[in-house]
């Protein structure tokens, strides 16, 4: 991978981190609110289903995680498992696709 691409990965990692920081904060507050409020599963789904705003928010959340997690793992694999080169990047691309697919599947189940 060229040094320019690696620099681009760093930018993407920090940008997605900023997005995730905001998303995680909202997500944690929401979850604690739902749990403390004693909302049942059906009550939660009644509020989330068909809600376009939350759908958009969580889709953005999944996208940011799909960018952020594989880039983070890239360093771990290279430094702790000494796994470098094309095969590592290919494996991480597959992992990103897995995250995107399973993430959107969950988002659609809850919010669509």
């Amino acid at each position, binding site marked *: 991978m060229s040094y320019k691409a690696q620099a681009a990965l760093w930018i993407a990692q*920090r940008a997605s*981190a*900023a997005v*995730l*920081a905001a998303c*995680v*904060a909202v997500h*944690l507050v929401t*979850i*604690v609110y739902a*749990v*403390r409020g004693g909302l049942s*599963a059906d009550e939660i*789904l009644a509020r989330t289903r068909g809600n376009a705003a939350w759908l958009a928010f969580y889709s953005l959340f*999944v996208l940011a*995680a799909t960018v952020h*997690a594989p880039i*983070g*793992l890239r360093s*771990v694999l290279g430094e702790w498992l000494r796994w470098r080169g094309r095969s590592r990047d290919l494996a991480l691309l597959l*992992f990103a696709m*897995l*995250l995107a697919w*399973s*993430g959107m*599947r*969950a988002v*659609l*189940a*809850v919010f669509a």
Partner: protein
Amino acid sequence: MKQHSSYWAFVVHRVSGIALAAFLPLHFWTLADAVNGSLAWTEQPLAKLGEWLIVVALAAHLGGGLRVLALEFLPWRDWQKSLAAAAAGLTVGVGLALALAL
């Protein structure tokens, strides 16, 4: 050999990141399934412990991440050590909040 606080902040950040990366696909998958089926198994104490650990990992990773962003983007010097403490504090705070809620 005793290590310094920023080193431990890194270790926590990395380990929590690995845990989250491992958990996330599972979380997405069971969420979609649970919505279509029943959520009863989530009431079990082991499941609740797992949820709490994941939230703590999330808070720890967020705290560590904010520390890194501060180091890389803000002018800094001698107060960076406090960042590790701030990250730890944030983690504990969130963990407690959720523990009380659960």
